[in-house]
């Protein structure tokens, strides 16, 4: 095996600590002040990226690309942190990344970008992404992307990938009840929508960052506007998932006691 070509599709979302308030903009729903809120790499895409880097590090001759469709200036900002974590090459598309864009249009733009990567070889290609998104999670983007790339071996909710001696790949997908379904695919091309995987977030390493930046900055500079929007979608109503934050500072409370309280709190609903 002379290595994989792993293309991770992932974009940015507002930092989850920020106040997220849906409002109506000129072309449909948006989040209040979204462009101005600090952003992070979509956590699901993040897992995909770190798993990709890990797989590439273990398989000599492999290479990782991150294809990211989002507002250029914001992606650049996020790259200053993400770009220090693992080695990859960026392919940037300038366009909206909010939770309200049409999955079909996004997938079409991503597919074009993947196809346009110089030297891309289907026999080595693994397309990674998040099976979910912290912004809305249309639940369709990756599947459509796979179809457009004519990759029919698709896996969703992936937590693990393990290359086998014969070149096949063993893949663990989440199923009901905390169980995994084990599949074996003969080899690339395949598409994997990642759940959380098993890896911690790699720490920042400015040395890795300095190396990545040589490619990231030119990629951002030459990124082209992608024609994506809300398409024909019409949103009747937009609300945040019902979430409640009840923070209490406690010190010296036994863990059992904390657990008991949390269970009690959850079962209130």
């Amino acid at each position, binding site marked *: 095996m002379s290595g994989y070509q792993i293309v991770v599709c992932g974009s940015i979302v507002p*930092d989850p*600590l*920020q*106040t997220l*308030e849906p409002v109506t903009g000129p072309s449909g729903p948006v989040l*209040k*002040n979204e*462009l*101005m*809120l*600090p952003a992070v790499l979509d956590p699901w895409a993040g897992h995909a990226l770190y798993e990709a880097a890990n797989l590439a590090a273990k398989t000599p001759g492999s290479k990782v690309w991150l294809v990211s469709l989002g*507002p*250029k*200036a*914001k992606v650049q*900002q996020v790259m*200053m*942190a993400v*770009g*220090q974590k693992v080695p990859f090459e960026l392919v940037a598309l300038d366009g909206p990344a909010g939770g309200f864009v049409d999955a079909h249009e996004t997938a079409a733009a991503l597919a074009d970008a993947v196809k346009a990567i110089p030297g891309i070889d289907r026999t080595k290609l693994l397309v990674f992404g998040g099976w979910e998104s912290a912004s809305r999670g249309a639940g369709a983007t990756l599947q459509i992307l796979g179809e457009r790339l004519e990759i029919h071996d698709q896996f969703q909710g992936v937590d693990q990938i393990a290359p086998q001696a014969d070149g096949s790949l063993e893949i663990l997908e989440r199923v009901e009840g905390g169980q995994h379904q084990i599949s074996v695919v003969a080899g690339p091309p395949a598409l994997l929508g990642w759940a959380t995987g098993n890896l911690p977030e790699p*720490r*920042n*390493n*400015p*040395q890795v*960052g*300095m190396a990545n*930046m040589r490619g990231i*900055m030119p990629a951002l500079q030459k990124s082209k506007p992608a024609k994506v929007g809300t398409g024909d979608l019409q949103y009747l109503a937009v609300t945040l998932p019902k979430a409640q*934050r009840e*923070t209490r*500072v406690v*010190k010296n409370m036994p863990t059992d006691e904390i657990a008991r309280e949390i269970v009690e709190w959850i079962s209130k609903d």
Partner: protein
Amino acid sequence: MAVPASVAAETLRTLPGDDVRQVMWRFSDRYDLQMLVQSVRSAARSTVARLVADGARNSHEWTPQKNELLKCFDECGATGVFMEPHQGGFIEGPKNFAMALATFELAWVDAGAATCGLASHLALSPIHERGTQEQVDKYMSLAAPAKPGEDRVPLRGAFALTEPIPYVGVDTGMLGGKVRVAEWEPGKEPILAVEKRGRFITNMGFANFVAAAVDSADERIKGSCMIILEDSDPGTFDRGTPTKKLVHQLSSTSDPIFSLRVPASRIIGGYAVKNGVIVPKYSHDEVIAAVFKHTRVPVGVMTSAKLLSAVEPVIRYQRGRFRGAEQAKPGSMRYELGLQVRQDVLHRLVDVWATGEAGSSLGFATARLFDELDPLEKEKTAILAQKGIAGGKSEFKLFREVNQRAVELVKLRAKPEAERDEKRVAELEADPLVRYAVLDSASGVLCPATKLWCTGNGATVMREAVSLMGGYGITEDCPGFLGNKWMDAQLEATYEGPEAVQRRQLSVCMTNEVFLAQYETWIKELRQVASVKPDTGACELASAMTLWLYTYKHLVVATDANGEKLFQGPRQGVTFPLSDALSWLMAARSFVLDVLELERKGPENAVVAEGLPGLAHFYEDLAHVQCARAAGEVGRICAELVYGYNKHPAWEGEGRKACYAAQELEELEDVIPGIGSYAVDVIGKDGSHPTKAGPCASCVSVQDFAALRTKLDGCLTGSRLAKDRAAEALAKVMIPEALDYPA
């Protein structure tokens, strides 16, 4: 042109993010620095914050838990920030700005942690600035974090100048540490015996090497020097007992004792042997001057970072203050805004924010200036060496001439383009010595101003931030650790040269003609800013700078009531307040310039452009508030200095002569009706006079001052409106749901 109401009403929408900071602090095009910021921030808001939240500050000892910090600094790039890429670092070129940014991020959470990081650089600094090539190569590479695959723990250093009382403190010349020749075999390297006791030495709990200041106690060694001691040197390397600090407990401090034998090659900068005497290339004073020039800037930035870090937790506290109470129903003002319905808490938070901004602007501007100055200084050293000038009088003489040309350049640059003699400008700029003289004279003022103002005034304003949290402010549970940050600020004002040292340097450097020439052009520049951006407070600041300059020029020639010269070194009562006033001005000026930069360059960045009209309004208001505050301070200080050294007129003697006699007034009333109601100092027929100290001091000789001061007071027009607007913005701005580090 009338501003549309929708734009006029625009105000701050979110707290300023990285995009805004990069524009204001001028590192939009420095990806290395942007990455450093992200990396150090993530270390600060995870490892460092957890240490503080877990109570690691509650011990004086350097514990294994605290020791985690060092590894964390190595990994996030905070250790390597001081090194060149070939030494194991990752940033090319001068590193002052990078260090200031890294310190800012660490101090945002805990200044002790920031100090721990900085002290390692402080230890390397004497070697970096004045060490021989071998010393630099050895210690910089060994102190760099291990490369991937390398199994090595980096060397850690400490800087030992301060000694047990009665020796070195503020006065660095009172050295008790001694160096003698222990062995000196002919043709071989002399072995020196070093005796040094330190007081309050940072990093001592784990340092492997120490840069120590010592004086010769041997006629075979000339003068003083700084020397490198290692923990493996033969003799005593006693780390001493930990200092019982009330602050910065995430740095290690103790009073070490050294009695060691080291080769003479450890003298920083090397030495020559002349007539059987070891002559160190640099005295300890020379090394220290070169070191502190740089390292004091990040300390100033530290306190300012803490002020800015207080904004978000204070707003969150204020807004949530009454939620949950029966009387505060969701949707009511009380519920939504909490304490923010009260004007005072908003006004005080505006002060906290404005001070933090001005300090950061000043600190970062100074750090950037040093990044420009450092390479020029190297060029200057080389040129002087070529000319055979080795400091002292001959250098002074050379710079007397260079300074003339530097002043000429400053004045030429300030002229409108059409009137400027570009050929002459180019000619002057082509001389590195001239460019050096311009930047060096500015840094001589801006560096101590940063250290003095950001920390000293910052400590006072940090107290305001703490009070805004009520009782919570002085508990360990206070979000953002504000109580710690306040206490810590007192140390920041003290170590690396307390306020007196900074004031002393300011009072010397403010007299530099090249600085003063720049100062005058800065006044003009601010007036120009004011003509296009009247809401920034730039005009008021220019008036305050004018008043300061008048006062300075007056004090240089004036004498007090006893005929004693006013502006002179020993008269700290004159020179120190004048230094304080100058620092207020420099901070406000830097802030105004950063706001201007934001407005100029903001539109180029899509993210900044999005909320720019509101952001710009808010920042102009904030700058205006700061300019007004600075103007008030400067007016007060200058008035005290100008009037305060005159003798107050008394009811006897000369003073009495200046008064009207009652009888005289009665007669004049016929000629000038109503004069009686204007005259205040009237002596009655029986010698009686109004009940007050004496006739009012007319201070005829400083009427110009009075006119300038009155003008300055008038310039305050509009400043409180700006404060009201800024306060209103704080009640509307969107903040995150929770703080991004544990409390």
